[in-house]
């Protein structure tokens, strides 16, 4: 039976288990149903949970390990000539077997040995499927039966059910931790493999980036250099331009909207500005590449400047526009958190409103604003689509915003889109870049959150 079908059967069984459990509780209690410890539906839920949960756990484990076990069994039965093959070659053969089974094209004519192995593979798969269905259903029935037998009028069904649900809630809440661990492990493992091929020092401080490695020894012009400094420089340049746009505009508009503007103007302008944060980044990328970049180029030609068609300036400007609402909404929060008494005191001493804002509100809000700017910078560094579409691929070490530069995220995308071989430093380099990106943004976020939180506590 296929997995969806099994799940459907399990659903039916669970519904039946609920009903059985409920009826049994009522039946055992007889006419004196008030002697039941819990409401009848809790007895039903108890039986149903015991029916479904163990079976689901089993199904998950089975599906996770099935393929690996079958493959190792097939490999163990292959003739000795195949056993001595290297791992990639062996993988190729396994792939051939799988393709043969699913009727796809195979890379080579299969020898009789291989035919036999393919059949063996197929039969193992069928056996595993059948066994899984049988065991799965028996576990469901067994769970249901055990729970059913436990039911008695003085059985604390509600407490049991609530305990199970609470465990499920706890499991859900740990997912965030597992995600972080998953991210760290997945980038770390591949990065370590990368640093075995390329020394860390060369990666962090090398000035040349050309990830094309030679396939043959004698190939020209693809030596493969993994110095990431040009990428870091490009990322910083674009983020700097973006912050140059977003920080003043975001901050002053937040000040204007929270301190000066008419409430009705604020009520329309603020959501409109926040639309900027909701527009998908790919739309910004398209806008940067097709509208802003040609515009800058034309303006540049008019002034006799040579603006390349993919420039750091275009990407940075558009990214800055995207970040405006981040800066303005965080600044807005922070400014609003400054107590009114400070404002009143300042105004009472005769300062104008702008003096009050500049000399009292802003200094008081400064830590929060800095935290917000750090978050915005981390956002700019991690932004992908705009730079992929508008910043270019040339790893040049330059501070000229009119030239094309490349960034960490662009390189991750170009290295990983398309065919990947997980044994070449070219692919692994993407993970090393990902590790750098993760660490830098993590540090920025932790500092920013710490600053913002510290600051909030100050006025609460």
């Amino acid at each position: 039976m296929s997995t969806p079908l099994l799940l459907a059967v399990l659903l039916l069984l669970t519904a039946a288990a609920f009903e059985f459990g409920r009826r049994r509780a009522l039946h055992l209690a007889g006419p004196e149903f008030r002697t039941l410890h819990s409401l009848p539906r809790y007895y039903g839920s108890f039986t149903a949970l015991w029916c479904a949960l163990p079976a689901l756990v089993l199904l998950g484990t089975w599906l996770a390990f099935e393929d690996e076990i079958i493959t190792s069994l097939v490999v163990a039965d292959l003739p000795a000539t195949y056993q001595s093959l290297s791992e990639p070659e062996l993988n190729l053969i396994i792939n051939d077997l799988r393709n043969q089974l699913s009727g796809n094209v195979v890379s080579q004519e299969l020898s009789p040995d291989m035919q036999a192995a393919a059949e063996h593979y197929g039969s193992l798969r069928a056996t595993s499927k059948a066994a899984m269905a049988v065991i799965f259903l028996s576990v469901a029935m067994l769970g249901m039966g055990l729970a059913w037998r436990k039911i008695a009028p003085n059985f604390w069904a509600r407490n049991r059910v609530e305990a199970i649900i609470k465990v499920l809630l706890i499991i859900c809440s740990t997912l965030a931790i597992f995600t972080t661990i998953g991210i760290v492990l997945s980038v770390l493992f591949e990065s370590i493999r990368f640093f075995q091929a390329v020394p860390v020092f060369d990666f962090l401080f090398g000035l040349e980036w050309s990830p094309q490695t030679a396939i043959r020894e004698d190939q020209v012009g693809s030596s493969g250099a993994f110095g990431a400094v040009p990428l870091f420089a490009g990322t910083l340049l674009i983020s700097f331009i973006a912050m140059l746009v977003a920080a003043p505009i975001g901050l002053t508009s937040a000040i204007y909207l929270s301190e000066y503007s008419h409430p009705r103007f604020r009520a329309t302008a603020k959501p409109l500005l926040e639309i900027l944060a909701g527009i998908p980044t790919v739309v910004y990328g398209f806008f940067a590449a097709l509208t802003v970049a040609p515009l800058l180029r034309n303006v540049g030609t008019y002034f006799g400047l040579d603006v390349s068609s993919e420039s750091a300036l275009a990407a940075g400007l558009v990214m800055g526009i995207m970040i405006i609402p981040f800066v303005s909404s965080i600044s807005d929060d922070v400014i609003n958190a400054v107590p009114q008494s400070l404002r009143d005191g300042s105004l009472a001493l005769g300062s104008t409103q702008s003096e009050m804002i500049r000399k009292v509100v802003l200094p008081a809000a400064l830590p929060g604003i800095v935290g917000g700017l750090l978050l915005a910078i981390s956002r700019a560094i991690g932004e992908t689509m705009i730079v992929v579409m508008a910043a270019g691929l040339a790893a040049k070490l330059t501070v000229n915003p009119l030239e094309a530069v490349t960034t960490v995220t662009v390189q991750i995308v170009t290295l990983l889109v398309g065919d990947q071989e997980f044994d070449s430093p070219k692919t692994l380099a993407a993970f090393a870049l990902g590790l750098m990106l993760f660490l830098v943004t993590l540090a920025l976020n932790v500092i920013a959150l710490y600053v913002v939180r510290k600051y909030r506590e100050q006025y609460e």
Partner: protein
Amino acid sequence: MTMTTADKIQAGLKKRYAAERRFRSYGLVSVTIGLAALLFLFMSIIGKGYTAFQQTYLKLDVQFDEAIIDPQATRDPQTLARADYGKLIKKTMRERFPDVKNRRDKRKLYKLASPGAVFIIQDMVRKDPELIGTTQTIWVPADDDVDMFIKGYINRDDPESARRLKDKEIAWIDALAATGSLEKRFNKTFFTAGDSREPELAGIWGAVVGSFYTLLVTLVLSFPIGVATAVYLQEFAPRNRWTDLIEVNINNLAAVPSIVFGLLGLSVFLNFMALPRSAPLVGGLVLSLMTLPTVIIASRASLQSVPPSIREGALGMGASQMQMIAHHVLPLAMPGMLTGTIIGMARALGESAPLLMIGMVAFIVNIPEGPLDPSTVLPVQIYLWADTPERAFVERTSAATLVLLAFLVAMNGAAVWLRKRFEQRW
């Protein structure tokens, strides 16, 4: 004469008021710049994209010649499927312009009709073999260059070498247009077809369906898990190091660059778990990890806003903590949770960077039929089309962007409506 303090203040006032006005105008200018950028963005996309909702069609009087389609008159479906319908179109075009003799010119002439015209005729014959032997007037999509010319994107005053259409072709188009054989119609293909290399045959339906499956997986995973996490952290969790760790983790995940989630998806879901590449299932898994923090944070805020009196009332009536939450707190917090989830979904719908990592950038013509079929999503389709050189894809990219933005506006509108409709002030 010495100045009194009042005089000093009086003397500085003018300057201070000027500074005040200046400071105020900075703010207004900033807000204006922000709004102007928004307006410019929308204008540029609408301006480039609205023409894609129309497509130029070419009228052909096709003679369904039996000698070409089915010389043996067997009406065998195999023969009908394999027949050379291109010949019919070529013949029609030749008859329309009998004075085109040169082979090169002829080839150019044939190219005025889209390559998709062949399939339209094939489809007609397959549905109704009776058509063979008759002459039918049909409208087929014109080639993208013709379309661009009719829409005015190719300027006939440019030097011939700089145009994609040469003088001869323009003359043919003029002749066709003069007899009413070219017409702009609503571009249905754009909304019903999958991707294609030919702009006039390319559509967004495949990407829309891919997005739908991806979001479905995201919703099914992130909503229950997010709500469960929020309930645990807000209602049950003791304040200790462990729950602090979970909270710090959630806050940090909310700020991790989306592309890093793509790396996670690539190495865990594709390499380690060996799930299929380019599948909405994997896309949904990655996006749900990404949207979880949003859902959790919104759900917690929503739970927090339920007043203690409700909880105490329920507990006072003898409900257990779990009953209090399930029967009273959760229903009251649900609108807020749904609002947060919709906003998270809207963000997931617009996300493309992590999906590039897990292979959802492939060129896929077929409409996916389930969450395991290879597919792409709307924002990635925009990315793919933005990369193509044809002028006709520019307007389609913009139009796809408009569709994406329309979905986002609808989702955010739903969230706002939900908030307004069920908002309770305690």
